[in-house]
């Protein structure tokens, strides 16, 4: 974790307004977060790509679940947890020559948990016993809360190798956008809980006191003594690793609040995701985490907003037949010059404009009443086609670069 020496201490030029460009040039970790379905993964990948192209840095994008074609474009097919350099050929195809390097990796939850266990286990036997324990397999594979922690843990691990100038991480879809922020602390709490200490006293020989009695009574009746013993056994195995886990999860928590880390909240201008994004941005500030930017994605084009446009559309709709009669000779003979057909097209086109204007105006209103003020507010227009390769990512990246 090398920190950079400040340069040009004596120079006092006014600080220019921050942009995504300056944000990505100064931070070591960028966490892209926000509600589901807003283009988090694409935004994270585009940011990393722009930094690699423009800053000459070695950049890693750590993504959770990229679209198939995007994964292919980043050379992530079947790569899993391993970091992988995006080949020059992909850049050539997009017509750019990067100054730096772009690396990409995916997050495989199960694999990451396994390697974490291997890291913390005191010996091979404990490691193997834990890995084979049915309870562990359930925790690491099936139940979703485990994603939240492991994504941050993985970020910490990669950051501590000091391999990359910048790591852009895409956060997993959580039930609640805050889950992954709380995950390290929750895990630490869990392992230092007094209840856990009761649980790991071999089940039969437990000292039952007034405080713990209801807990055991209830859990016994619900889960059965056998399962409770299984749980005990699992945590007894795990016991050797508590300290390591607690220490590690605290370190992960510290890394997230470090000045070198910034958060980029991605959203669309639809009401529901935007409220969620706002809430998230407020929470970041409350936790003294750095809100670097808000990226508003899939915003409808400006030309949909004008009153003038609406007036034209209304005229086209109301006077479709007259207009069609006038235009018919210009459009040609035969089917092209059929006034009835022209009138239909004019009406359809005009109605479609007015429909989209309703949505565009709603978006504009949402943007105007945005309740948070990040350092950088970037807007990405709606692209009418999917983004699935480096050229697409560059197109998006240039919009947010500033």
């Amino acid at each position, binding site marked *: 974790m090398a920190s950079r020496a400040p340069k040009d201490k004596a120079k006092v030029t006014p600080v220019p307004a921050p942009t995504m460009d300056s944000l990505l040039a100064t931070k070591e970790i960028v966490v892209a977060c926000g509600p589901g379905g807003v283009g988090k993964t694409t935004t994270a990948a585009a940011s990393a790509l722009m930094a690699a192209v423009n800053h000459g840095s070695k950049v890693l994008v750590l993504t959770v679940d990229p679209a198939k074609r995007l994964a292919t474009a980043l050379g992530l097919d079947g790569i899993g947890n391993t970091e992988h350099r995006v080949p020059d050929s992909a850049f050539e195809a997009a017509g750019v020559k990067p100054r730096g390097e772009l690396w990409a990796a995916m997050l495989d939850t199960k694999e990451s948990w396994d390697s974490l266990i291997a890291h913390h286990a005191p010996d091979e036997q404990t490691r193997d016993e834990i890995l084979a324990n049915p309870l562990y397999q359930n925790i690491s594979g099936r139940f979703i*809360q485990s994603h939240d922690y492991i994504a941050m843990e993985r970020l910490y691990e990669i950051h501590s190798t000091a391999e990359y100038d910048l790591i852009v991480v895409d956060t997993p879809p959580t039930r609640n956008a805050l889950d992954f922020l709380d995950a390290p602390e929750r895990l630490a709490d869990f392992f230092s809980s007094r209840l856990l200490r009761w649980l790991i006293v071999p089940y039969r020989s437990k000292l039952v006191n007034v405080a713990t009695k209801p807990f055991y009574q209830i859990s016994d009746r619900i889960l*059965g003594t056998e399962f409770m013993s299984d749980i005990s056994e699992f945590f007894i195995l795990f016991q050797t690793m508590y300290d390591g886990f607690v220490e590690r999860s605290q370190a992960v928590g510290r890394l997230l609040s470090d000045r070198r880390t910034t958060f980029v909240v991605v959203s669309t201008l639809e009401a529901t995701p935007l409220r969620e994004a706002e809430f998230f941005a407020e929470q970041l500030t409350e936790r003294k985490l750095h809100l670097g930017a808000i990226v508003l994605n899939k915003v409808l084009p400006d030309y949909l907003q004008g009153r003038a446009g609406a007036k034209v559309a209304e005229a086209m709709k109301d006077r479709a037949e007259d207009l069609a009669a006038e235009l018919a000779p210009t459009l040609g003979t035969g089917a092209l010059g059929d006034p009835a057909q022209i009138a239909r097209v004019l009406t359809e086109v005009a109605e479609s404009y007015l429909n989209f204007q309703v949505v565009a105006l709603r978006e504009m209103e949402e943007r105007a009443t945005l309740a948070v003020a990040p350092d950088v507010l970037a807007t990405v227009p709606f692209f009418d086609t999917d983004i699935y390769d480096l050229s697409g990512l560059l197109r998006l990246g240039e919009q947010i670069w500033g």
Partner: protein
Amino acid sequence: MGADPMTPLLERKLVFVTGKGGTGKTTVASALALLAASRGKKVLICEIDGKGELAGYYEAPPTGFKEREVQPGLFAMTMNTEAALREYLKLQLRIPIVGRIGPVAKAFDFLATAAPGVREILTVGKLCFEVRDNGWDMVVVDAPASGHIIGQLAAPQAVNGLVKVGLIRTQTDWMLEMLSDPAITGLVAVCTPEEMPVTETIELAVRVREETTVQLAGVIVNRVLPELFGRQEEAVFDALAAPGALAELDALVDGDAAPVLEAARLAVTMRRTRSTHLERLREGIDPEVPLLYLPFLFARSHGLRATRQVAASLGEELGY
């Protein structure tokens, strides 16, 4: 499944609605419940991820664990696993927990973290209990997003695998029976005609079949854009957008018509991009599973009016 015809959606008693984030899962769930209620059913809708958004779809005050009527015949509640546990202990096990909620809540929270599936099983348990004992014609669940739904629906099996005896075990048996019966229970996946939602829906369909006992009762494709025009009309449109014709149109309407045509071009391209994803969806989903289409809603805002509009479209798609 096999040769048996699928039970129609509104005739099922327990319907889970899931979907990738941002596809309109809650919109569809709330519209489905409203549609059922408007057809005379006594309906409960339950929000699982208690973000408190559901009430807004009916313009009702925030909902809690105790259900409340939000529309005639339609009751809404928000899941709370702790409250579900307390209710379960009281009603089923006759262990009253009065006062002293603090330590129990803490112990519960701990247990739920330690023992995987406890939270999920309490949620599913409460829903099954409502269906079995509380006289609803239909229980609609605004379920977790598609990334999380499998863990939820497969919880009874998972717990059955881990817990051999105990009360939970006897409970999971009847829950499993209810979840596995396609005449009672069904899962609805909400999707939009976009790359990731379609991919996720196809993957979800496979996982539902392989990892749960619940039947996929339908896929609802939300926000389908209208088809602006056919091939002939598109030729007319292209001719209109040519410089000469456009200049004439500008003069006739006394304004700049280019943005209006540009918007139509955007709408056409969007629809075209999306239709390739729709084809992929149709190919990727078992042909027995009905696909229902809901139009893109060019509406000013959310709320009861929008929910009603979606419910009406859904009713049309279901043939009512």
